[in-house]
């Protein structure tokens, strides 16, 4: 029994379809084009050359291949990924929890906000050598460096995300007798998810910087050592190959986070990009 004639206001045509180019979606196509353009510019800049310390793209890839074959790259990452994984996991779990707590509870906010604002504003690179006084030069020191860079970003983003959750949606949930628990889990968290995830992505990237900084400044090990060693012996293509893998790795992790976000929190973003 349709009481109301389906006079549904017409939406102009079917939702805008993305174009196909060479059998892939147009966004994917343009992304690939953009990456290739960057590599081409790199190659040209290396050939000019803009600096003796700037290798071409092709020689960098050759160096990368060498290091993969002789196992140096693998060993370096085995070293670097440990503190990174531990540090990022701790920052993510506690960072999101503390940030969300700050958004929901004034006491939590008063307690934590100054700490993380100061951390975020401080020149962490200058503080990293100080870590060695407290934690020596082992795994712990590197992990602490990762946390110092990643946690403030994750905490402050989560906090802002929760604070800015749409008040109208919260009232809606309350008006349908949602409990405080339901308001938090069914409205505040999903509505904060995009900004929380943006914080996580930035946090992961910052964690990478943290671990590399620690390896450059505290203990010459892992990928940081690949970078500093090859710079010191002027094998710049090897140095850039190591930097290149850092960027690549960081981008892959950021991409995976984006996939997880859309899959578990924001299904509406799946359709129509």
């Amino acid at each position, binding site marked *: 029994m349709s009481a*109301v004639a389906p006079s549904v206001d017409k939406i102009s045509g079917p939702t805008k379809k993305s174009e196909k180019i060479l059998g892939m979606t147009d966004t994917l196509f343009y992304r690939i084009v953009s990456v290739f353009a960057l590599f081409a510019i790199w190659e040209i800049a290396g050939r000019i050359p803009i600096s003796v310390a700037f290798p071409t793209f092709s020689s960098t890839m050759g160096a990368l291949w060498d290091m993969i074959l002789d196992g140096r790259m693998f060993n370096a990452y085995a070293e670097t990924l440990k503190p990174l994984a531990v540090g990022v996991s701790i920052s993510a779990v506690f960072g999101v929890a503390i940030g969300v707590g700050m958004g929901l509870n004034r006491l939590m906010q008063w307690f934590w906000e100054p700490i993380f604002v100061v951390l975020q504003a401080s020149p962490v690179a200058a503080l990293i050598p100080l870590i060695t006084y407290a934690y020596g030069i082992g795994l712990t020191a590197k992990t602490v460096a990762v946390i110092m860079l990643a946690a403030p970003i994750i905490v402050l983003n989560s906090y802002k995300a929760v604070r800015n959750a749409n008040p109208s949606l919260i009232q*809606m949930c309350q008006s349908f007798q949602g409990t405080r628990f339901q308001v938090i889990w*069914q409205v505040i968290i999903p509505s904060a998810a995009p900004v929380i995830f943006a914080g996580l992505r930035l946090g992961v990237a910052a964690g990478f910087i943290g671990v590399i900084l620690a390896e450059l400044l505290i203990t010459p090990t892992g990928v940081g050592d690949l970078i500093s060693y090859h710079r010191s012996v002027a094998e710049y293509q090897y140095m850039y190959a190591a930097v290149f893998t850092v960027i690549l790795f960081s981008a892959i992790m950021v991409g995976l986070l984006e996939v997880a976000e859309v899959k578990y929190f924001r299904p509406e973003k799946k359709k129509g990009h």
Partner: protein
Amino acid sequence: MSTAAVAQMPDQNASTEDNIVEVRNITKYYGEDIHALDSINLGFPTGQMTTLLGPSGCGKTTLLKIIAGLLETTEGEVLIHGKPVFGPGPERAFVFQDFALLPWATVIENVGFGLELTNKGTKPEREEKAKHYINEVGLGGFEYKYPHELSGGMRQRVGLARALAVNAEVLLMDEPFSAVDEQTRRKFQEDLLYLLANEKKSVIFVTHSIEEAVYVSDQIVLLSPRPGRIHSIIRPEISRDSTPDEIRRDKRYLDTVEEIWTNLRKYLD
């Protein structure tokens, strides 16, 4: 004075047996010095449509949210079926001016959200019910769309279906049609009247449009500017048997619109 409209003293209207909602002596301050509402006494008759009309900022939304239990009063109380209530309850459902749809949920999930929160029935039962009301508001076929894929008018229908789905006796609507164009708005008004006749709801409705108020209401409450007080209560008493076009040409209809306009105009200066 027009014969069509019967102005009553507010107190006569309050505390009748068949008022589903009553507000007694409601005063609301925001903070120390923003005096939004001043001693409002009102009755909302069961099965009728009451409209709150008044200049911008006079406290219409505030009063509606107080009735919904979303805002606390500074003084006074809200009674449902004669009993004081504190906070939201299952007898009342709110239709939001900005729709308040969950952007990450499909139409069917949004419509079933109220049922899900109170855990009414099994999941298939809730979906069944949601589907029923989606059809009722004319959105059949859009069950699995997301809000951003709908037009403003369609989104408002989702908000209406969600409020209908919890089967509350009282619908509280805050300017529900302000986001749609004039043609759609007229269509909605008729749809709403039709739904109300079928579903036997009591409605408290906020609008800025005098024409809309006179067209849909059994009772119109005129509020004065801040602090909001009851200026007068008008019962248009327009027969609903005629066609919409006849009603809009009806002398009583036009006189009532004119009378309210005269009353409101003095607040404009």
